[in-house]
């Protein structure tokens, strides 16, 4: 066994995984069964005891059939001796206890016959499972629904995808809503024809109906879909297909909308997919079953009516019927779309299951979730980080500051088993923590001057508010509420002051920062990829429609309406939908309009609503998580969408719940993260996890942010940076010794080093990619930051040099300071030799220090 795979203890690793004992017992049983000469009940196509099924489960775990002819497919999953769960549906046998209630249409598909209840028994390789089957309203037929029956068909065939008829203006003269989200609009477009226009509600273009009620077979919908006339989307179905029949039947029936007489049509409330998460080996395949939860509380098997798309066909492929095949190792998701809804199923493909998966210790729920997935994917996490690794990492992550050499020695010598937790608490209470997290939040909250169009008199109080919030550990929901609802002068109201002061921009940013959703596309039209509509966008933007900037940096919400850019009409204008030109009342995403009597503090109402949404907590924890792991559980961190699923959905949910239960306490969240074993894993990889970049099986090296890197260089060299403020007149300057992290407005202090290393100007919500570039390399070679600080009199090296310290002593001190570790014997020998071999000892030491500062080990957090 490789050295890095030392025996690791494993505690409870989640409900879905077997305990080591059970695993061994299963192995033993499988061996005994095999030895007894029983028939081979292993998974078809594979041989050997490792694929012998040791337990079964059926999905869904309960079957409910509503209405006459309702049916439900079930899946049978068998956990094999090698730990992998496989689809054994086709190799299983099925029987029903009461054949009057339901029948087996095909193996694995149960159809309703009469009201009642029965049991479905599933057997495979000596294992059996029973599933309750309930049948109700068997005498009734499901009423026709345009959205589900016709719209769902468009969704399955991809007609209403964002790259076709659901694009902004539609295609070929036909406009449809994405995934039949707006069936009434779709109905109108089909019956009347015409094209969508962004800036007006009027229909554009020639209006050609897509159906012909007098000659149904001549309907364009059929002719084009069947490829009988020229169609950009090619043939979507054949003339003898069930899809063609369905549409023809509908047109012949007069093209009803269906459910018109009902106050509220039955819609799909959400989709469920079984199984939600699957691990395949490279020969594996898995059938998916999709069930809809309807708005009337019922369920329906819609597997045959949904669209399946693999997010990465190089990892898994999927058929139209939902059968997924492994292609190569990796991880991806299969997107499932139905009318108005979407869901994903995640897939991992592994090379071969491991023989001896070690037991891994967990420290909290984070570890339980992370290690459960690693177990499923047969990835062994790295070892725990060394004390040196941990100390440097946690100091940088919590304070943006390297640990002093003296503290490193102290920490290494400390034998207290709780020392890591104690250090975490100490760092959380340090003034450097306040500095660092003020910087972090100043970044995301965009404290700036020039790019923000502010004066320092407004931007600085904004920074002060952030700093005070961090210093007093203000709950995150309160921070959000104060920002969203900011009024008056000073503090977060500065955020709303500059530039165009547009409600739509303000709202989009609040949603992106606090709910992790990118709403912008829905400004001009319904969102092309998600289920956000333009009306929802403007309804939410209306909460910012009364905002007004008054003299002396005061922000207020005026009763009569807000102020946009000027021109006649004066102030206090009502807030209008740009397309319909109708006044838009402030409306929450669920369609609820804010009552008039609550509009005096209109943005506070929005703030309360936003912070009460589950999106708020999950977006918050996701962003914070990304600061410690280099990526969010959803990445990018503010781009939650159905096509961008979380890598660990249960972990995300657990973090969000924990965050909320602890009053949105940021320190508690940070402490929970850094106390986990997951966070404290080493960056040294092993054979099983060396390719992993998304499952947290080891620490991923992360480049230091520009500000942190510059401060580190200043700290190591003992030479502070001077920050002159950019100004058109006589400029200001920060006091001597000010660190880059302490700069309030990043764009007010020109600094070539930080620009090269990716400092953002905060003109938009910043995204730092940390990618290395040629300019950085050149700056390292000849840039003034390095050359000046290395050679400056009075710096650390100068002091060491003049103190008469030996080369070994100097090398050791600089290594401790820069890398937070002692140099190895070999490193020391090489460096001493290099220094002694140079004519100028001073220059040699400078070069040595330059080498340290230019190393990846220094410039990265690992």
């Amino acid at each position: 066994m490789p050295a890095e795979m030392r025996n690791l203890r494993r505690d409870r690793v989640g409900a879905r995984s077997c305990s080591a004992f059970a695993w061994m017992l299963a192995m033993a049983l499988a061996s005994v069964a095999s030895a007894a000469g029983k028939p081979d009940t292993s998974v078809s196509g594979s041989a050997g005891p490792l694929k012998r099924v040791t337990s079964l489960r059926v999905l869904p775990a309960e079957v409910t059939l509503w209405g006459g002819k309702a049916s439900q497919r079930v899946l049978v999953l068998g956990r094999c001796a090698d730990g992998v769960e496989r689809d054994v549906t086709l190799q299983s046998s099925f029987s029903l206890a009461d054949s009057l209630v339901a029948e087996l249409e095909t193996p694995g598909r149960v159809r309703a016959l009469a009201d009642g209840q029965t049991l479905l028994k599933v057997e495979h390789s000596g294992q059996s499972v029973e599933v309750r089957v309930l049948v109700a309203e068997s005498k009734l037929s499901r009423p026709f629904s345009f959205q589900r029956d016709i719209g769902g068909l468009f969704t399955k065939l991809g007609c209403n995808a964002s790259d076709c008829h659901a694009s902004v203006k539609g295609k070929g003269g036909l406009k449809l809503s994405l995934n039949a989200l707006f069936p009434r609009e779709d109905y109108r477009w089909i019956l009347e024809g015409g094209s969508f226009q962004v800036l007006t509600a009027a229909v554009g273009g020639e209006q050609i109906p897509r159906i012909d009620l007098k000659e149904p077979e001549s309907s364009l919908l059929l002719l084009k879909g069947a490829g009988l006339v020229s169609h950009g989307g090619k043939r979507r179905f054949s003339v003898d297909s069930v899809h063609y029949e369905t549409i023809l039947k509908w047109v012949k029936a007069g093209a009803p909308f269906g459910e018109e007489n009902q106050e509220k049509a039955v819609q799909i409330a959400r989709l469920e997919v079984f199984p939600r998460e699957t691990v395949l080996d490279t020969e594996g395949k898995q059938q998916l079953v999709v069930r809809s939860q309807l708005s009337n509380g019922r369920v329906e098997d819609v597997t045959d009516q949904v669209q399946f798309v693999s997010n990465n066909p190089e990892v898994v492929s999927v058929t139209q019927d939902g059968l997924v095949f492994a292609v190569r190792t990796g991880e991806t998701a299969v997107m499932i779309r139905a009318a108005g809804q979407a869901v994903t199923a995640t897939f991992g493909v592994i090379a071969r299951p491991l023989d001896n998966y070690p037991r891994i210790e967990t420290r909290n729920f984070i570890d339980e979730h992370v290690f459960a997935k690693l177990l499923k994917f047969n990835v062994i996490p790295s070892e725990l980080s060394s004390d040196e690794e941990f100390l440097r990492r946690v100091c940088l992550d919590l304070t943006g500051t390297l640990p002093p050499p003296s503290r490193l020695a102290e920490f290494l010598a400390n034998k207290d088993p709780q020392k890591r937790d104690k250090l975490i608490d100490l760092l959380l209470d340090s003034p450097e923590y306040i500095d660092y997290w003020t910087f972090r939040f100043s970044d995301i909250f965009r404290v700036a001057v020039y790019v923000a169009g502010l004066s320092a008199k407004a931007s600085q109080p904004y920074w002060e508010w952030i700093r005070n919030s961090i210093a007093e550990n203000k709950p995150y929901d309160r921070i959000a509420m104060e920002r969203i609802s900011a009024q008056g002068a000073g503090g977060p109201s500065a955020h709303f002051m500059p530039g165009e002061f547009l409600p739509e921009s303000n709202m989009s940013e609040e949603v992106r920062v606090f709910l992790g959703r990118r709403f912008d596309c829905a400004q001009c039209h319904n969102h092309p990829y998600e289920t956000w509509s333009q009306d929802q966008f403007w309804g939410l933007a209306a909460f910012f429609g009364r905002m007004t900037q008054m003299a002396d940096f005061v922000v207020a919400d005026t009763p009569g309406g807000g102020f946009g850019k000027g021109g006649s009409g004066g102030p206090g204008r009502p807030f209008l939908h740009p397309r319909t030109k109708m006044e838009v009342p402030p409306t929450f995403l669920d369609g609820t309009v804010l009552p008039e009597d609550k509009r005096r503090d209109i943005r506070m109402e929005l703030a309360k609503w936003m912070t009460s949404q589950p999106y708020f907590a999950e977006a918050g924890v996701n962003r914070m998580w990304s600061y410690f792991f280099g990526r969010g559980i959803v990445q990018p961190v503010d781009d939650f969408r159905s096509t961008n699923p979380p890598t660990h959905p249960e972990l995300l949910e657990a973090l969000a719940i924990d965050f909320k239960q602890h009053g949105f306490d940021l320190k508690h969240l940070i402490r929970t993260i850094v106390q986990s074993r997951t966070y404290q894993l080493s960056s040294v990889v092993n054979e099983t996890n060396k390719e992993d970049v998304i499952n947290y099986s080891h620490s991923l090296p992360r480049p230091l942010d520009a500000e942190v890197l510059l401060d580190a260089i200043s700290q190591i060299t003992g030479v502070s940076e001077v920050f002159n403020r950019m100004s058109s007149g006589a400029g200001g300057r920060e006091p001597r010794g000010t660190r880059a992290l302490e700069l309030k407005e990043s764009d007010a202090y020109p600094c070539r080093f930080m620009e090269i290393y990716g400092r953002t100007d905060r003109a938009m919500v910043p995204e730092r990619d940390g990618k290395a570039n040629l300019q950085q390399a050149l700056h390292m070679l000849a840039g003034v930051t390095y050359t000046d600080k290395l050679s400056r009199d009075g710096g650390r090296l100068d002091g060491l040099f003049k103190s008469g310290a030996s080369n070994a002593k100097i090398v050791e001190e600089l290594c401790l300071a820069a890398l937070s570790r002692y140099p190895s014997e070999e490193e020391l020998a090489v460096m001493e030799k290099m220094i002694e071999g140079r004519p100028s000892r001073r220059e040699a030491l400078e070069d040595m220090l330059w080498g340290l500062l230019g190393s990846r080990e220094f410039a990265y957090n690992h």
Partner: protein
Amino acid sequence: MPEASAEEPLLTFSFPLGGQKGTKFEIEVTGRGLTGAYAVWTGVEDLTGRILKIEEIKPEEKKIEASQATAEAKPPGGGQRVLLEVVTSSLTLPGAHDFRLVCPRGITNALTLQVSEQPVVSEKAEVHDQPEWAQALDLPALVNGQLKEPGEVDYYSLEASSGQELVMEVGCAGRKLNPTLTLFDPSGSWFDPKRLKRIAFNDDVSYRTRGSKLIHRFASGGKYLVAVGAFVGLVESASSYQLRIAPVNSVSSSDTEQLFTETPARPETTRWNERSFVRPLRADILRELWRRNVQVPGKELPQVATSAGIAVESPGLPRRGTGLQDGENPALSPPLISVLKEKEPNDALAQAMEINLPLILEGAIATAGDVDSFSFSVRGAQAVAFELETPLETPNRFNPRFAILDAAGRELAVNIYSRLGGDGDDWLLSPEPKLTYLFERDGKYQLQVSDSTVRRGGSRFVYRLLVRPQIAHVGAVEVLEDRANLIVGKAKKLTVIVEQEEGYSGDVLIDVEGLPPGVKCFAAAEVEPVLGPALEKIHPERYLPKKQKVNLMLMAQEGTPLTRLPSLARVNFRPIVGGNPGQILGVKEIPVMVLSAHKDSETF
């Protein structure tokens, strides 16, 4: 003899900022055109000074100042440093006092020095811009200090006891420096034993003052550091400050006292301002307004009713025989306006407090979101003026909003003035302390007072709202110049801006008295500047006065005697209506000197 330079002497800097009353202390000033300065002029008897030394500023110093100075301070021809001795008496009023130097080229602009009750210590000469070099202070302390370089910070240390509450203030004179205050705990951190932990910070006491103030109760005793810096480290040139640290509620400090207050104005000259939220609205305001119009003997004038409703028929002239001259029959003077305190609850219009006009309402936005509602009646066409005073908190902390509504609750007018500005398409809104409105119909109306936001409120958000009949009058009169150095044979312009309020349509006579012998004052015309296109404004007549500019030329003709010390000339104005003159009211006193055209000549 060569012609003298047209450049006037100018003071740019002084240090220290002041001293204790009843003592003598030295002040160093810099500027230009100060060569040969021979007198210190304060205009006040119990504050005098004399010149001790004058020296030229060395070239390298000139260079430093040039690179850091503003355009005004940049010395084109060189600069001087003058050492003064200032003498105060026990009668000298504490507070800010102006002083000038008298030079061969005339009198300088004014700088401010502070006279304090308590002793003042000086900043130590050694650099103390690092925590370890902090200057120790004994409390209470008043320190004269200066910042010279961008980014400079002066550190001071003090010992505080557990539970002690201290007030720390820093102020400066003029607008060159915007000082900041930071309080630190110097006990270090895990990373750095010398690390300062910031406890408190202040940049501005209020939006319109440049001083900073902290009040802090110390949870534990020990050594603490106070740092004085400049906002964003901006130090254009050497700038003086005073730092005061004292126990709260001690004799020399209170939590409401500002470090820099203005001395009482000379009684003969009143500063009239209708556009300030802190001008006091007194019960005798009507009498003050009538002084700024004309009394016409024999003419019956409309009544000013004091019973229910307003009875003034039109913007009227003051009552015959009434007036403000001493000795007049007080029975014929305009009445004092009654003061009424608001009573809660009065948030909703249905709870509006009934009021009779004219009156002064005293109230407070007691909590965030509080609204005070009042209802009143008017008869006929009434022109009413609403004036607001917010003595404790002002914009941008308290942005008061008062609205006039009709009986149905529709807003008719509000004190928020809206106009286009910036690059022509940005709406600018500002709360205004004065609003005039013409009620065209009689009936019941309502007033609502609140903050512009729903976030502000508290015991300091008090207001006084004056509601009175409009009275046409001359508003603020401002003289732009603060001195006049006349060269014999040449003229000097004084620019006077006159505001006419509430429909005043009479004339305004401007004259200057107390000029040196031989100096004459003439009216002068000026070419009207070409203005850009007018930007949209919403009802400017409700918020803004009409303005006129008057140019006066002071001329010292040939043969005018030269002056050694300035004469204090007084600019007055007098309303004229229908040919009838009103009272003479003072505007400003300006020192005037007459100087020779020849640079090197004696001035007297």
